[in-house]
């Protein structure tokens, strides 16, 4: 079932382009192809409907770009963390990053009327984003500290600490839900389900540099990750500063996940499933796994979001629910499959 990385790269790149372009044409607002082309190129006069131009430029386009950024970013973070922990189940949510981001953002939303009333809508949105981001970083830093003894980070201790921090963050989110009024409750629920519906240019502007820089830096860690997958001692013999590498990879992944969760809420399974799909296609070498995961993640999220927008039109399905619905069965199949290989 494996193909060459190079052909996979081209196929996936093409798939991302194609799904992105098709996504621009899809939606509950019916626009024929010529109308879309006319709005984007400006050829043949401006559109007859001002709402249509707004829809394409300010709703669909930023949304498609967000799907690519977040899908690609989450998948890269997932692939790197799985490599680092030599654990195919490693996922940003396991290390408490997602739930940490969630907890602080939920607190911010629940403090609601008092603090947020002072802010303008834009300030309000960025306030929540910043809180989510800080929450993710705090959780990751704490997990990392808990798991580090005398300069050595134990992977198993880190996973355990991740579970503990996730529980704590869950309690904080529960507290936020307890004190929240009805309106904030709606916002928090919306957030736990994840959605690209709020995707706007200012979010794209904040996300783009973070995702590009962090993913770019992660791609440079491919050789390190390959060596780490042999075991930490072997990696150290091969001349890798294991501690520094761990720190680098965790910080970069947190940066991506914190920013993504902060802007769209929790979108599950992309970080887990995309790298697995790529491993099925081309194998586990990180030099190809990382970039291909980025493409795969972008493609998966584009498809999921297109479904979220169109299945219940004119209402929208929560994206996080959809990715979980699509991702969980795949993951179960994956588990079954790996058990079978062990027993065979």
């Amino acid at each position, binding site marked *: 079932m494996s193909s060459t990385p190079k052909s996979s790269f081209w196929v996936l790149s093409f798939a991302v382009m194609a799904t992105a372009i098709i996504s621009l044409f899809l939606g509950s*607002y019916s626009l024929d192809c010529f109308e879309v082309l006319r709005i984007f190129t400006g050829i043949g006069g401006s559109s007859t409907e001002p709402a249509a131009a707004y829809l394409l430029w300010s709703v669909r386009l930023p949304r498609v770009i967000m799907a690519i950024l977040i899908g690609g970013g989450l998948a890269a973070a997932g692939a790197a963390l799985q490599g680092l922990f030599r654990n195919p189940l490693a996922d940003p949510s396991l290390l408490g990053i997602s739930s940490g981001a969630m907890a602080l953002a939920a607190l911010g939303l629940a403090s609601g009327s008092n603090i947020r009333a002072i802010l*303008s809508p834009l300030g309000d949105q960025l306030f929540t984003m910043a809180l989510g981001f800080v929450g993710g970083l705090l959780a990751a830093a704490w997990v990392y500290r808990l798991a580090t003894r005398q300069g050595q980070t134990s992977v198993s201790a880190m996973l355990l600490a991740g579970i503990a921090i996730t529980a704590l963050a869950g309690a904080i989110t529960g507290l936020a839900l307890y004190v929240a009024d009805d309106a904030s409750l709606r916002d928090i629920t919306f957030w736990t389900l994840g959605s690209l519906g709020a995707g706007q240019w200012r979010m794209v502007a904040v996300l783009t540099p973070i995702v590009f820089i962090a993913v770019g830096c992660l791609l440079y860690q491919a050789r390190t990750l390959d060596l780490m997958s042999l075991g930490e001692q072997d990696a150290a013999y091969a001349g890798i500063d294991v501690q520094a590498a761990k720190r680098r990879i965790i910080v970069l992944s947190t940066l991506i996940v914190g920013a993504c969760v902060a802007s769209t809420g929790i979108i599950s399974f992309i970080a887990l499933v995309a790298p697995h799909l790529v491993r099925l296609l081309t194998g586990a070498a990180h030099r190809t796994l990382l970039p291909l995961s980025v493409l795969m993640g972008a493609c998966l999220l584009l498809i999921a979001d297109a479904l979220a927008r169109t299945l219940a039109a004119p209402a929208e399905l929560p994206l996080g629910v959809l990715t979980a619905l699509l991702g969980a069965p795949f993951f179960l199949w994956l588990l079954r499959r790996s058990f079978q290989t062990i027993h065979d």
Partner: protein
Amino acid sequence: MHCNRFCWSLTLTLISALIFPTCSSAPEIAAQAEPGRIVSLNGAITETVVALGQGRQLVGIDVTSTYPEDSLGHLPSLGHVRQLGIEGVLSLHPTLVLVDDREAKLPAVQALRDAGITVASLPVAYTLEGPAILADTLARLLGVPDQGEQLANRIRMETAALPATSAGHAKLRVLFIYARGAGNLQVAGIDTPADAVIRLAGGQNAGDAFSGFRPLSAEGLLAARPDVLLFFTSGLASLGGPDGVLQLPGIAQTPAGQNKAIIGMDGLYLLGFTPRAPQAIAELARRLEQLSSSDNSNL
């Protein structure tokens, strides 16, 4: 460091966002002769539009718009206003979008304004005057002030006809429970629509020790000593009816549980402050009255 640069740009954006608020909170309501295609994102507003005889202009509603069913059944629902998809609204080509004042500043509603859609935010006040004011405001907005006056007068007359809250005997302590299955029960404190309706119907809110909604606990229930439990019909159904409610821990020990004093009423009707609000309050008052008299006969 790129991280630093990011922090700076984020700080700058934040500061500029705080200094230059983009919101224009004043509702811009101008008389409109021919609104044409209306999307209403609030149950009380939708009901008032229909009551004004303008139901045929509606092209989309939200999930809270449930009455009157005959006029709304065929309309596409856009979900909850707090989970609004901008594209979904635009796809209905509305010329006018109606929202509750409280929701006028949501990002999605702002985005609709940016898309060039006329958005009118209307007052939906949790007072007896609220429905009449809404009818008046909405009628002027839709260019049918006469129907508005009629409707507002009708509401005011029904309000005036409400029985004076009986001061003779002690007020019943009523606890409103918002239920979505046995695991998700919230009780209404003060500053809630439920609190307003209970007081207007001549009862006393048993959840008067806190504001907003709180999760229900057996202990809190015993402390509140409710004489009557008030539910949405849908909430009552999610618990398996009155029998299911009596199974909940703590309920059987309250006066309400012992007398099986459980009332279920439709959510929008009871707490929506729609044109039917006087009727709803009258009905609740009547049912409370029945319960308290049967109470007395038991003694």
